[in-house]
């Protein structure tokens, strides 16, 4: 009970808890959740969002650190673009390996996650390290590179707004446009999409890889620009993996991802509070994440089996 109260206090008990803890943690989960959702929607098993996020963070940080004098009006769009490009390039490697050499993206994206981790580790000890060369981190960004908060006195930042806009845009494109329809068709039945619809699945999965990576990269840019204001080694505590649960629990619906990202953000915020105030480890939240995921998987299979039974 004590743990529950602490959890509630940390996640939703006050407006500060909700806006500054839950939503701040929900922001990267939302963007990466969308990255996973769009990939899975097209049947692309991108489990490398973690690495793409890191590349996005590196790219956005590089922009912020390279030209600190830029005005915010230029700086922030430049960081957003750099983050998206960084993530997209990283995902593009996996896409290239798949299409050129037939390397399964499941394996290549795992490898690229580790390479990205090594890359950021080197960056914060090498080219982007703060001048005293003591701490494995970059210097703090200039004011212009710090993303604006959405409300005074709260820590929710521009990244959340970007995430919500991205979610609505993705929902609109997937459900209302021809391009989105092709993505869904390839994911739900690649063979029928090719045979009955004449869709070029190869070109389509290329684009989906890039969009997915760009969204994950955006999450990295949003973390450094909106939360840390500097590049750190541990910029992501496994957001790329939690995002798989975020996306699947939302049944890959971008609108649902907004809700599940907030749900998992609240879990993380509440978990941190539980640990501080009730001695319940924050990591217990992962048990909930995993069991949710397993339950969703089992339920989906059960539905599929029942559908088969009904039709005989």
């Amino acid at each position, binding site marked *: 009970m004590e743990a529950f109260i602490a959890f509630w206090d940390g996640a939703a008990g006050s407006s500060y808890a909700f806006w500054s803890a839950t939503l701040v943690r929900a922001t990267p989960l939302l963007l990466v959740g969308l990255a996973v959702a769009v990939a899975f929607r097209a049947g692309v098993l991108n489990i490398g969002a973690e690495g793409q996020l890191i590349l996005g963070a590196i790219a956005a940080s590089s922009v912020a650190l390279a030209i600190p004098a830029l005005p915010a009006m230029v700086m922030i769009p430049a960081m957003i673009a750099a983050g998206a490009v960084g993530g997209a390039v990283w995902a593009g490697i996996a896409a290239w390996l798949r299409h050129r050499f037939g390397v399964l993206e499941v394996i290549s994206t795992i490898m690229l996650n580790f390479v990205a981790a090594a890359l950021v580790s080197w960056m914060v000890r090498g080219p982007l390290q703060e001048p005293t060369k003591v701490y494995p981190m970059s210097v703090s960004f200039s004011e212009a590179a710090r993303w604006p908060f959405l409300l005074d006195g709260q820590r929710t930042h521009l990244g959340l707004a970007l995430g919500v806009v991205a979610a609505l845009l993705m929902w609109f494109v997937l459900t*209302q*446009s*021809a391009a989105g*329809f*092709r993505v*869904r*068709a390839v994911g*739900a*039945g690649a*063979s*029928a*999409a090719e*045979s*009955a*619809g*004449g*869709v*070029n699945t190869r070109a389509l999965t290329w684009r989906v890889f890039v969009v997915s990576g760009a969204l994950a990269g955006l999450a990295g840019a949003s973390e450094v620009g909106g939360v840390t204001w500097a590049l750190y080694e541990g910029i992501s505590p496994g957001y790329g993996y939690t995002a798989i649960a975020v996306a699947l629990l939302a049944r890959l619906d971008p609108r649902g991802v907004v809700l599940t990202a907030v749900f998992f953000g609240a879990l993380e915020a509440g978990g941190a509070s539980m640990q501080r105030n009730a001695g319940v480890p924050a990591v217990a939240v992962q048990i909930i994440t995993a069991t949710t995921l397993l339950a969703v998987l089992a339920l989906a299979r059960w539905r599929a089996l029942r*559908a088969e039974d009904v*039709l*005989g």
Partner: protein
Amino acid sequence: MSAIALALHDIHKRFGAAQALTGASCVVKSGCVHALLGENGAGKTTLMRVAFGMLQPDHGEIERDGKLVRLASERDAITAGIGMVHQHFMLVPAFTVAENAALGGPGRRFDAGRAAALVRRIGEETGLLLNPHAKVGSLSVGAQQRAEIVRALAQQARVMILDEPTAVLTPSESEELYAWMRRFVATGGSVVLITHKVREALAVADDITVLRRGATVLSGPSRELSEESVIEAIVGEARVTSNATPLAASNDEVLFGLDAVTYHDTSGVRRLKPTTLTVRRGEILGVLGVEGSGQRELLRLLAGRLQPSSGTVRRPVVVGFVPEDRLHDAVIPEFSLTENRLLAEASAMRGLISWRDQAETTTSIMLENDVRATDANAAMRTLSGGNQQRFVVGRERRLAPDALVAENPTRGLDVQATARVMHALRSVAQEHKGAVIVHSADLDEILALTTRVLVCFAGEVHEIAPPATPGDRGPYARALVGAFA
């Protein structure tokens, strides 16, 4: 009187709504080659899958060497001394012949040398010569078949079930196989030969069993049976009434034309010999042929889904196509009807979709084609097979009102659903003066529907002239089993 090696009595098997076997029996004697004959879909393969433990019968008994047995799995069948050579070979392509032969074999140790020696010994004893160290994936089709027989022999099979073994073999390979069969039965083994070729059966089998619509309709020693009586048993009574319109007028526009077209598959095997034909407006062209005879390639060339290896294909720019594997190639089961309608335009679409207009179009297709579903938003998987197929036909007609190619469009449908799909195909030719090309495994269906009939046999396309007596299925049934007039 030789002993009974394998007997299946009164086997019944149902798949969902379809009754595949309704009282099929087959008694295989020791030291005999037993041919199992029947048209496509008569239940030959299903019955033998029951005998090999792959399927459990709903009703019926199986005897092996006079004792009742229950074959709950392939393992049980293998233990009972039954082997099966599948039409689509069941070998591990990445393994060598010796490894495949040893797979599932006795003992704990696997010794590649001993396995190779076993393959060589079986080869010497039976004439089924193979390089034991060759990867199965690199072997010719005939050699793969030998490897599968050798595997079954290595597992001590005494009853060998061969599913359409000669469909993939050259004539000389077939002769070698027959020679092996004779040697195998001479040592007391038994062979069950699943085939659709009557002359083959009469030439090589001691006994014959004929299945029709899931039931045994004829069985007996082959020397007591005439070709005519066997064909009659396979084909059934002539009870077809053709209600197709007469031939199109010779001055009607030619919609499809093949000029000396051949097709070679990706591995270079010729699937279609040089073929020339035309299809005019108002025609419904029926294409018959057992699996692998070239009809699939012929239809896909006409539909523009395959490109010819040589020759020229003339066809309308847009051709409606109803593929055989509906749930895999034609529709997306999880999508709504509206989305599945839209699928046909997926590659050409740009910009935004007006779902309201799409739903209206879909609803009108549903009405025109009598597709029964709650509404256009229903998921495709919630529809019955017949409704799904009428939807696909309706969608393709909307796309191409006067040119439609359909592969086995009534596969898996019940009688009523079949009739409605056939009605939809007929109206393309009759009401819209279009051209329809349809392949079906069911001879009666083709005769009832079409105005002209082609039979594919071993990659050759033969046009069968209408018989003197209307409704006589004899010439077609003969052509299907390779007996051309």
